[in-house]
């Protein structure tokens, strides 16, 4: 059984079709990154999975429980962090988590243990007695994460879990997600492409309510024209003649200046699957050009993201 099964899920608000038929399945051990411009339908899809919105068409199951007809059972197996990590601002963080534990059916010592465990996982101990409204954005987000993780659910759905966090906090949240990945099926939505690379085993680009691409982050990177491109920086500008020679190599599609004023960097875009770097290094060595830096690019996700979503628009 798949932990998440979605079939032809659609949602319209009046005349606006926010989600137009999304289908996929997700298994234990997968971390799926939802990518897409604002208004793509990411949050709407997540809200339907979490049982907050009723789908206009199609169905979704969490651990085999339909989110509409068997919603309560589905929500028991699910941890959900809504966008912006809303909570009750007047409540102390610890009281709020205890409330969530109680609602989830844990009582007394067991509830206490669940809360303590979640607090430790997201490192919330220092602010446990503070009202949530007085917490910094990072801590508020962690309260939301603790709420979602509290019952150690099989399925986690996190809507922009790192939005608004500083780089250290982002790193911490990513580590947290990566640490849980093996035992759960996780969906996160994000605008940050490096995040997909850092934590996701699978990436899905959504725009206009449809899935445009579904693959591994590496597959997504491979769509970039810069995938396996060779970046070369030299101490002095490379003479025109040698540039022409480089461009003429059968393994090279074309050259592109790095676009930065302060260096002599050029991108050598590869033709086919050849190990272009080797040929570039060989030629430059032969012509006696002093190379300061030479590296192979993995591909630029933001470019891929732009190409995919703009082509669809």
């Amino acid at each position, binding site marked *: 059984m798949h932990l998440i099964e979605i079939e032809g899920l659609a949602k319209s*608000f009046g005349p606006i079709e926010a989600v137009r038929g999304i289908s996929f399945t997700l298994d234990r051990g997968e971390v799926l990154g939802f990518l897409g411009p604002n208004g793509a339908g990411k949050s709407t899809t997540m*809200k339907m999975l*979490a*049982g*907050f*919105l009723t789908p206009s068409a199609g169905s979704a199951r969490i651990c085999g429980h339909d989110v509409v007809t068997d919603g*309560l059972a589905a*929500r*028991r197996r*699910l941890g*959900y962090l*809504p*966008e*912006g990590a*809303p*909570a*009750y*601002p*007047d*409540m102390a963080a610890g*009281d709020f988590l205890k*409330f*969530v534990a*109680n*609602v*989830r*059916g844990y*009582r007394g010592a067991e509830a206490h243990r669940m809360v303590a465990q979640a607090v430790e996982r997201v490192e919330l101990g220092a602010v446990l007695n503070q009202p949530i409204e007085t917490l910094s954005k990072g801590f508020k987000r962690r309260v*939301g994460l603790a*709420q979602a993780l509290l019952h150690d659910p099989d399925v986690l759905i996190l809507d922009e879990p790192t939005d608004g966090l500083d780089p250290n906090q982002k790193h911490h949240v990513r580590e947290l997600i990566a640490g849980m990945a093996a035992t759960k099926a996780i969906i996160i939505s994000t605008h940050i492409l490096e995040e997909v690379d850092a934590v996701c085993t699978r990436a899905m680009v959504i725009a206009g309510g449809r899935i445009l691409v579904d693959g591994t982050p590496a597959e997504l990177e491979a769509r970039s024209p810069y995938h396996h491109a060779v970046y070369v920086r030299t101490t002095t500008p490379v003479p025109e003649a040698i540039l022409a020679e480089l461009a003429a190599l059968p393994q090279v599609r074309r050259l592109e200046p790095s676009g930065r004023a302060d260096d002599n960097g050029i991108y050598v875009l590869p033709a086919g699957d050849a190990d272009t770097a080797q040929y570039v290094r060989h030629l430059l060595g032969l012509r006696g050009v002093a190379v300061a830096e030479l590296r192979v690019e993995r591909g630029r996700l933001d470019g891929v993201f732009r190409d995919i979503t703009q082509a669809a628009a």
Partner: protein
Amino acid sequence: MGTIGVIFRRELAAYFTTPVAYVFIVIFLVLAGAMTFYVGNFFERGQADLQPFFDFQPWLYLFLIPALSMRLWAEERKSGSLEMLLTLPVTVPQAVLGKFLAAWVFIGIALALTVPLWLTVNYLGHPDNGVILAGYLGSFLMAGAFLAIGAACSALTKSQVIAFVISAAVCFVFIAMGSRIVLGPIEATLPGWLIQTVTSLSFLDHFSGIARGQVALSDAIFFVSVMALFLFANTLLVELKKAD
């Protein structure tokens, strides 16, 4: 303790972690006292009962209960916490009942704090305590009905101000059902049986019976029915509008 109980406890505790509870209780007690002694001429009447106290309760509730109920759903929707709450294993009817019961018990606490009035009247004379108890019961039931109306109105909107104004207006209509204000415009056009139906929905009529010690089951059933109806509407409204 089921899910309703967990929500009930959180809601009730929330009143006391913010100034809402204290402001509400103090204002309620001050106004109830002022109405009883100054407007109701408690002493000048020379009678050992709480009639002047109960007579003003509907008017006190008219604006105090919407002030209490306006935040019930509007605030949750505005802050987004409704999405958090309803994606926990909680059904909408459980949330509706938990919130309603907490607010109702809170009003019950405020009402119970008027006990010094009851002690005073027992010190001064020999009132019929059965009548007074019936008055409290009637007042509590009527408060529940106002509260259910207020809760349903709060589910209509994200704006607490709008929720307050609409609840107060709807509550006023229910208070004044039997009076010229409501009956005047419809008397000429509507058939007699409908006018009678409208009149029979008057909170004032149902409450004044109980407050005078005539505890009719029908009055109690009336208030309970109003609560049930509006809580049902509340549930539907939350389901319908939660995503707006």
